[in-house]
Structure formats: C-alpha cells, structure tokens
C-alpha cells in the first residue's frame, strides 16, 4: 500500500481483556517495528522484525505482550490481560531494510485505553 496502515485507530477495552493491534506495512519493506508512546512521552521500542530473522523482542515490557509477523508482511501485536498502565498510543513503522540505512515510515497509531 501507499503507507503503513494500523487498525483499529482507537480501542477501548476493559482491564483484564486481551487486545490485538494490527499493522500493515508498506509492500516490500522487510523491516517492521512496534513502539508505544505514553501521553506526552517519547517512543518506547517494543519489538523489531527483519525479514525471516528471529525478531528482536528486547523491548517487550512483560510476557503479556507478544507479536507475530505472518508471511513477512502483516504484523499483529497482542496484549493479554490488559492493565491500565498499558494505555498508550501503539505505533508501527516499516522501512526498506535495517535502520542503519533507512528512515522509518510510521502508521497513524492505535490509541489504546484500558478502563
């Protein structure tokens, strides 16, 4: 597609429920990243996929968070048993290759609110 697409754009969920956030990167981009941004804060790295390599999961804050990327394209970030501190904007980005050569193209994000 023309840009990085994220869905839903907004999600309100009850504490304890599971949520799935979707990211559709730019076609042909081999690198895909998830970040989250709490209100008024910078971006916190969560996870990085590059081609068929094992993902870099070093930023996932707990084992309630997981992500997968199917067929080297669409990615889903899953948060199990959501907590209020999970409320944030979740941003997905893709790039043609690793970050040492390219800038990222970001989606518009999913605003998650846990009530």
């Amino acid at each position, binding site marked *: 597609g023309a840009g*990085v697409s994220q869905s839903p754009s907004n999600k309100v969920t009850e504490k304890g429920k599971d949520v799935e956030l979707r990211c559709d990167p730019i076609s042909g981009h081999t*690198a895909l*990243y998830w*970040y989250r*941004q709490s*209100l008024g*804060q*910078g*971006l916190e*790295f969560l996870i*990085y996929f*590059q081609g068929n390599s094992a993902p*870099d999961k070093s930023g996932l804050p707990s084992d309630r968070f997981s992500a997968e990327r199917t067929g080297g394209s669409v990615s889903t970030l899953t948060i199990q048993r959501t907590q209020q501190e999970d409320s944030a*904007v979740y*941003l997905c*980005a893709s790039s043609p290759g*690793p*970050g*040492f050569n*390219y*800038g*990222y*193209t*970001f*989606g*518009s*994000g999913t605003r998650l609110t846990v009530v």
Partner: protein
Amino acid sequence: SQQGEEDPQALSIQEGENATMNCSYKTSINNLQWYRQNSGRGLVHLILIRSNEREKHSGRLRVTLDTSKKSSSLLITASRAADTASYFCATVRSYNTDKLIFGTGTRLQVFP
C-alpha cells in the same frame, strides 16, 4: 530506554523566526535521524545524518552532528505556523544497527 535527550522540552516562537532544537545522546552511533509528530500520532521522517557527516540540509531544515560531543541540532529557518509539532531525534547505535532509539522530544509552537 531513552538514548537521546532533546533541549529545550518546549519552544515558542513567532512566524518567520528560526527554531533551534538540540539533541544529546549517550553511546556511539551509526546515524541520527529527526522526526516530526503532529497531534500525538504518526511520525514523519525529516532527515538522516550519518556519523561521518557533520551537516546536512533539506529545504528549510539544517541538521548538524558533533560526534565528539554526542550532540546534534535541528534548525528550522523562517518558521511557519504549520511547523508547530513535536520534534524527536533518534539514533541507530554503532553496535546495534537495527533499531532506532528515540529521545524525549521538543514541543515547538509557532505563532502566526
């Protein structure tokens, strides 16, 4: 963890003035990038400067990099109200060339 710290945290100027934002980082880098964010949503890539470069220009943007001081600056000349946004620096570390680590951002307000 945050790699960069932007300074100032907030900046207010009049249209036509220049805006300068600074970024400091902690570890050696492969490159440094600047992004703009409007309304707390998606970020837009502005410019990438590599560790062996000292200055780069793109339109009204001028970025400098001083690796000895581990710092960078972003200058926006002849600012416009449409430049109102948050600006973030982000670095790709020398020893981990895969992901960007973002700073805390500068909130720029340009008054007409």
